């Protein structure tokens, strides 16, 4: 694999990974703000 192609794929994976993790964390925080104690405990908390 040419170095240039490798770097491009690497950057795409890094960006996709960072974006998906960021969205997951944001979604988790959103749920945390809305979740009741009862739902939290019922979900296994």
């Amino acid at each position, binding site marked *: 694999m040419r170095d240039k192609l490798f770097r491009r794929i690497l950057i795409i994976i890094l960006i996709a990974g960072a974006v998906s*993790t960021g969205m997951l964390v944001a*979604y988790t925080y959103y*749920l945390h703000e809305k979740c009741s104690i009862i*739902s939290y405990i*019922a979900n296994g908390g």
Partner: protein
Amino acid sequence: MKLFQQISTLFLLTICFVGFDISVYNLFTKRYINSTSEQMQAKSIELDKYLPFDENSEAVKIDTDFKLTENLPVVDGAAALYPVFSAFVNAVYPQDSVVFDGENFTPESSLQYTNTLRAYKSVVDGGADIIFCAKPSAEQLEYAEEQGVELDFIPIGHEAFVFIVNNDNPVENLTVEQIRGIYSGKYRNWKDVGGDNTAIDPVQRIEGSGSQSVMMSFMDGIPMKKNLFGFMGRAVGFSFRYYVSEIVGNGGVKMLSVNGVYPDKENISSGQYPITVDFYAVYRKDNPNSNVKLLIDWILSDDGQEIVEKSGYIPIK
């Protein structure tokens, strides 16, 4: 060889991201998914389920001779007590006094619902004439004092304050001392109180909510601490019996016995269950509306107390 290293690097990096996201989802995200309706999430109760004057409503309906037709006190209160004060309105108020737009009560409605936090502010500011709530927090009392308002608290019924855990938690009973120990940080592992070897996550509510104020009173001045690693284990929380068992009715949680006594109606009525709280009709002492006191007198009468009992609470008399 170089190609193999490059592909391995890309593959490992992808696996790391996917693994990290799956861990976050399983450890945190999954636990916060609310299984209740949108309205329940937003308001802690489904208002239309207990709407007065609605034939499909689950609010208790009784016949009474006492009726109010004018100068109707605006009533408001806690989520857990909404079925009760909605039933009071249903029995005593004229039908056109309640206006519900499908999501909220409109400003001209004599029945309002803003939950404990805002209801205490509303009664002090004069928005509501009577609110139905548990004890106020120190901040709520302080706010009334700052505004130069004296509030009267009339007990109209009582209820058990309960502790809940996940159904899979093998613990069925805690003592008062153990509960205080869990919330003060003395016990951080369920094995210390007869359970599995896993961390305890003592969850709390926001300050000013009815159950949080009762919990702070129950702790009797002992500061409450969170367990930093509690999220790795199993949680314990608190609420009111009727709210847990009837209003929410989530089969994934169970109520614990306290000092060996289960919080059912019989044990609460007999006084055996050790943590019961009164709930109150709260109004400003200087409220000029004479119907406020008339309504409260009726709530304390046999008819009013019948509503309290049929709604699932324990009458005060």
